[in-house]
């Protein structure tokens, strides 16, 4: 009888199968002994959020009173005000003016100084002074001759005098029964996460390995967070109805903070649960 396969080929084939089987078995041992057979997935947040609705107490979306930080300017206008221009003689090569300074009349020529101001020149009804690389135009007093004492001469800085826009800081303010948070303040913290942690410390509350919530570690004095009324050791229970028991929940609130019109914080202070309400304007 003729063999279908050469015994040599069958032997090689069986050898190969055994070889692969051994490798497979080795991997199986490794898998059972050291490798994980379970895919670890983050559970999607299925917790339902309670309905949150709040009536605004302040009318017409009035803007929160804003704290205006006045720009610190050099007192340059005050000093030029002391100089009153009484008379002008304007020639082609020299300007001569008569000024009143501290109830004394003085005659100045181009380049002369008074009260730190240097006379640079004069026009038909004004004299030009300079000080610290800035020019000041002093107008001839109205009725200078008749009403010297009632003249109103204004020092007008005309160069290098761009007034910077006033810096407006968002604030947390009390407006009657409601506390109002300026929206710009929220937007600032939404864009600058690091600034939050400069003003407030938040720590995890854990039971074993499970995260149960967050606790306030510190609140910087006079920061907007202290004006919210939250204190050290307060436990944050919920924000706008969203229970804050996970980083994801906290991050969800943070991500949407720019879009909210009201803010409601439920905190535990000692054994007392408190609700802090704010409006965003």
């Amino acid at each position, binding site marked *: 009888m003729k063999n279908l396969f050469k015994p040599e080929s069958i032997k090689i084939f069986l050898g190969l199968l055994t070889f*692969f089987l051994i*490798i497979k078995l080795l*991997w199986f041992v490794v898998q059972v002994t050291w*490798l994980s057979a379970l895919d670890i997935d*983050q559970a999607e947040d299925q917790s339902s959020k309670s309905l949150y609705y709040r009536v605004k107490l302040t009318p017409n979306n009035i803007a929160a009173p804003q704290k205006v930080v006045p720009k610190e300017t050099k007192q340059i206008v005050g000093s030029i005000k002391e100089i009153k221009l009484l008379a002008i003689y304007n020639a082609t090569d020299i300007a001569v003016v008569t000024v009143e300074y501290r109830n004394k009349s003085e005659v100045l020529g181009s380049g002369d100084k008074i009260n730190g101001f240097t006379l640079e020149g004069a026009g038909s009804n004004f004299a030009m002074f300079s000080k610290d690389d800035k020019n000041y135009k002093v107008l001839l007093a109205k009725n200078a001759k008749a009403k010297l004492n009632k003249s109103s001469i204004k020092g007008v800085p005309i160069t290098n005098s761009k007034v910077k826009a006033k810096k407006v800081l968002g604030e947390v303010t009390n407006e009657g029964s409601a506390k109002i948070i300026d929206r710009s303040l929220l937007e600032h913290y939404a864009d*600058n996460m690091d600034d939050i942690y400069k003003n407030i410390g938040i720590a995890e509350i854990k039971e074993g390995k499970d995260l149960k919530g967050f606790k306030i570690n510190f609140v910087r004095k006079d920061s907007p967070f202290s004006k919210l009324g939250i204190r050290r050791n307060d436990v944050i229970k919920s924000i706008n109805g969203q229970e804050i028991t996970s*980083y*994801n929940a906290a*991050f969800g609130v943070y*991500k949407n903070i720019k879009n909210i019109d009201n803010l409601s914080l439920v905190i535990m202070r000692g054994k007392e649960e408190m609700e802090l309400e704010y409006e965003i304007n």
Partner: protein
Amino acid sequence: MQMVKKSVLIFLMLWFAILLFMPKAELYYTIEKSLAKQDIKLNEKSIEEGLFSLTLKDVTVYVKGIALANIEELDFFTLLFYSSLEVNNLKVDEALHAKVPAATKEASFTHSVLTPFSVSIDANGSFGAIEGKVNIVNKDVRIDFVEVGDIGMIQSLLTKDEKGWFYEKSF
């Protein structure tokens, strides 16, 4: 000569069998388990095992439960003597755009037995294009920006020399 041929053949068979029967998904789950200890989790829509590769589609990266980034495709490839990890279309959450580059179009990390102690990095995205190396022995990393894009948010971490911007750090 016959002996050499037989040895090479056995070696090739062994190499092929190891790759063929490698429990790639389980190896990935084990890496996931290690990452989970550091509060990093990967949720993927699908896992596809290839002969030499493992491909993950639509991967969401969670850190402390927060979905911080999404990756369209992650591809592990290995021939044992050459391995690579390809990342395609990585997008970070909008909330982090002020901190890290918004998008990485392609990134690849490769390791070869020819340079056993270093991992090469190549990537391009909204930040431009980078090339770099991680030295496992010296425990340092250097990444050079060969093209500069939007790096404003990470510029404080970078240094500039005559070749351009680079990032250097020991770990």
